[in-house]
């Protein structure tokens, strides 16, 4: 239910052409490969691997990550407010999970 739930936030009042910060949090355990202390079995990693940031379907950035990023990752990155439009993130993990989240951007 909950893995991959995300919050995507853009500022509400910005001017056209201004550089702003997109902030996001995604629920994900981000566990490295490890040996289960009780059963002694090898547990494979479970992490987000890639996150693409789009503005109106044009790629702005690609972020690759692994188990070195904290659980329930927080990411903030800058981008230019080119126009009114949609900021979209598409993210996937190493077990085939793929999600997307959008936020409306209004410029003045």
């Amino acid at each position, binding site marked *: 239910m909950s893995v991959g739930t995300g919050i995507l936030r853009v500022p509400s009042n910005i001017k056209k052409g201004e550089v702003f910060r997109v902030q996001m*949090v995604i629920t994900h355990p981000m566990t490295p490969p490890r040996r289960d202390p009780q059963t002694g079995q090898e547990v494979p990693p479970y992490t987000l691997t890639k996150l693409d940031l789009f503005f109106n379907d044009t790629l702005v950035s690609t972020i690759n990550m692994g188990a070195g990023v904290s659980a329930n990752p927080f990411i903030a990155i800058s981008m230019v407010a080119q126009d009114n439009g949609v900021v979209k993130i598409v993210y996937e993990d190493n077990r085939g999970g793929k999600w997307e989240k959008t936020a409306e951007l209004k410029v003045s």
Partner: protein
Amino acid sequence: MRRYLILGAIVSVGAVVGGSIYAQQDLSPEEEIRLIQEFNRMLAEGVNPGEVWYEIGKDSVKKYNLDKCDFGLGPGVFKGAAAQLPRYFKDAGKVMDLETRLGWCLQKYANMSQEEVLKFVRQCWGKSGNCVSEYDALVMFLTMESNGFKISVDTKDPNVKKFYEIGKAVYQTRIGPWDFNCATCHAGKQEVRIRATRLWSADRGETGQAVYYFPKYLVRWGLPMTMHYRYAECIRQMRWPEFIPHSDLAVALSTYLYAESNGTVIKAPGIGR
């Protein structure tokens, strides 16, 4: 003789000339506390992952029929409700804090037995990584609905007053094989640390600063910690037997802590280690 007396008194008052013989650390404890507060400030920037639980909680409230639940301001009124808890509830005939009341409503409106509620509460206790509990989500939702409200526990109510006094006495009670009470760590004028963690102190009037941000998102476990989970963890570290959530003990502690924090503005979720 007289000269000795006066000089003796002067020596007794003891001019503190710096350079204690114990200053062997690279960083002074005070400096370390400051740097760790800096770390906590940096953590608080940006989106708090705990807010995801609020989003989940929004749906859970409907799922568990809690729009019928009265948190003291009327059925289904959540705005500001958490700020006036704990209070006395006529329908239950008891003083309850937020989580105890939530448990009571889950029994009444979501057809859960008491055991089921306790299991529901503790589903993520002791876990880390990938545990999302709807109970945590409900508590997060209910608390965040009171963000911006000032804590205002009605201590004039005799029932509340009684629990306040019990909570205060419990805070001081030294019991168990390690002789702890709450005040062992959370009292005293001097600022001290447990390992790297700076401890808040009731004697320094920091109760408000300790409660206003609960539930607090814990980075080391990747989940929010509700107040009752906090009590349970403190009590585990104190080597007392295991804590039972929604008990009178929890209500007494909440009554004492929140009443001492009256006037502090709620701002959940917090974030920390």
